[in-house]
């Protein structure tokens, strides 16, 4: 029923998600430079100034955006001009669409209606995520094909092969999660992580599926073509699929990289780190395992939950950046080897063991 409250809730949550994701992706460009600099005993970019204020190089985000917009937008001599132009759009469109089902808070009650803090409260959220991640491959393959360049085509084929190989591991790992939480809806999964395990541990997914967490982390990094799995991007070692792109089309691909980093971080927090759950925080306030409690109004509780979601996503983004600047790149055959011969069997074993345990304990 499309009441005014429902419509305005949808608009408000969409605006929040889009602003959050795009701002965080912009900030991640700065974090990448600064974090890598601090890890490498350097200072990083700190020269962009507005009114004489340097602000630790934050204005480089704006400088990069302006540079991207003002560069020459070159379309190579190809017959597929439409596909060439639409490939980056597809990439970023489906990466952004996946955020529609990720819950960033519990629910807010306004005027008798309870609004879940999620753009689309689908009860098949996980299937939707699989669908969006699968369609994201199109952006890559179209970019490689329509560039009219042999090496870009090879880069596109490599990227496609990598993405579809690691999607399987992601899917199987999430099967384990689905079996434990008995639901495909992400909001239900996050709500189910609210209890306590053994009396004092928050019942987060990582304690139920530690192997699944590692598998999902590795497969997620590979799916989004981050280092150590960034052979498709290559960056000065091997030709990537976005060779012929310039200006904002290339900027879209780079932005997709960061948005997918945020996506994998959000999925990791949702499935394995409790999503928006704060440890020991119930709807009425904190309830500590040693007995004491701390009452809070529902608005403070919801605010804390949204903040905890943001903090967890930022932590995982930081971790992915750390891994990016630490590990060397996998060779393509090592990458495919890992995807098919190591991660796939491990995720199958994980699924079997989880199924056995769920049956045995129920």
């Amino acid at each position, binding site marked *: 029923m499309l009441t005014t409250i429902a419509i305005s809730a949808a608009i408000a949550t969409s605006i929040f998600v889009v602003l959050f994701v795009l701002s965080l992706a912009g900030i991640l460009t700065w974090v990448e430079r600064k*974090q890598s600099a*601090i*890890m490498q*005993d350097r*200072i990083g970019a700190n020269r962009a100034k507005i009114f004489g204020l340097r602000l630790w190089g934050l204005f480089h985000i704006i400088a990069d955006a302006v540079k991207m917009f003002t560069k020459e937008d070159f379309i190579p001599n190809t017959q597929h001009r439409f596909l060439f132009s639409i490939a980056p759009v597809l990439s970023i469109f489906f990466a952004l669409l996946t955020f529609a089902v990720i819950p960033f808070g519990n629910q807010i009650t306004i005027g008798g209606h309870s609004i879940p803090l999620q753009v689309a409260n689908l009860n098949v959220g996980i299937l939707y995520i699989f669908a969006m991640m699968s369609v994201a491959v199109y952006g890559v393959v179209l970019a490689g094909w329509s560039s009219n360049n042999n090496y870009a085509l090879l880069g596109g084929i490599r990227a496609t092969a990598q993405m579809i190989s690691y999607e399987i591991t992601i899917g199987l790992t999430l099967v384990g999660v689905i079996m434990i939480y008995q639901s495909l809806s992400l909001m239900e999964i996050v709500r189910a992580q609210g209890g306590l395990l053994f009396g004092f541990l928050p019942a987060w997914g990582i304690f139920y599926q530690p192997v699944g967490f*590692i598998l999902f982390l590795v497969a997620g990094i590979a799916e989004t073509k981050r280092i150590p799995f960034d052979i498709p991007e290559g960056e000065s070692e091997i030709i990537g699929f976005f060779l012929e792109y310039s200006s904002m089309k290339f900027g879209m691909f780079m932005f997709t990289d960061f948005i997918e980093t945020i996506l994998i971080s959000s999925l990791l927090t949702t499935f394995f780190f409790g999503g928006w759950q704060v440890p020991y925080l119930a709807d009425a306030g904190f309830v500590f395992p040693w007995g004491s409690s701390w009452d809070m109004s529902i608005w403070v509780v919801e605010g804390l939950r949204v903040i905890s979601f943001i903090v967890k996503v930022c932590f995982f983004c930081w971790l992915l950046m*750390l*891994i990016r600047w*630490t*590990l060397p790149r996998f060779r393509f055959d090592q990458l495919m080897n890992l995807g098919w011969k190591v991660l796939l069997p491990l995720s199958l074993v994980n699924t079997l063991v989880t199924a056995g345990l769920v049956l045995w304990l129920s």
Partner: protein
Amino acid sequence: MIARTVNVVNVSERRRTLTFLERIYLPEVMRGLRVTVRHFCVNLWRHTLRAIGMKSVQPGAVTFQYPEVRRPAGERLRSLHRLTQRPDGTPRCVACMMCETVCPAFCIEIVADEVPDPNIEKRPKSFDIDIGRCVFCGYCVEACPEDAIRMDTGITEIGSYSRRAMVLDIDTLLALKSAEENAGKPVDFLQKLLVS
């Protein structure tokens, strides 16, 4: 037949089998991450402490913030030339033409003038060094018998908009100071001398 020595490397000695922990790679990832996280935390801590005012802490980065701070150069670095002065302000140079003769790039031009004092005999009326031609070999410094020319200003930022302006005359060369005195100056102060 010419005998050749060939370096033979036994490949099997170089490529050893990996242990089980090395093959599953995750412990190696953890070792690598430990190094980088340690660098991250230590540097961030040092940056924070210096930002809140404790300048005695070691800096968190090895970066020199050029152009505000110059990288410390070696004592024997051959930078821009200068002409030294006697205690009364006159140039030490006696226009003996040793530096002009030894210069491999032919960039020094001296015109001599008479001096009444018989101990000094000559002085340079004009002393031009074409910095655009100079190869910074330091032969002129070695050849000079009076310690009149030195290459110790510490100025390495030599750029100009025209070749004409790269020819430094005697007044410019006398006015330049040694590296210790140039140390605190901003990097572009030479540009005012070199812009045509």
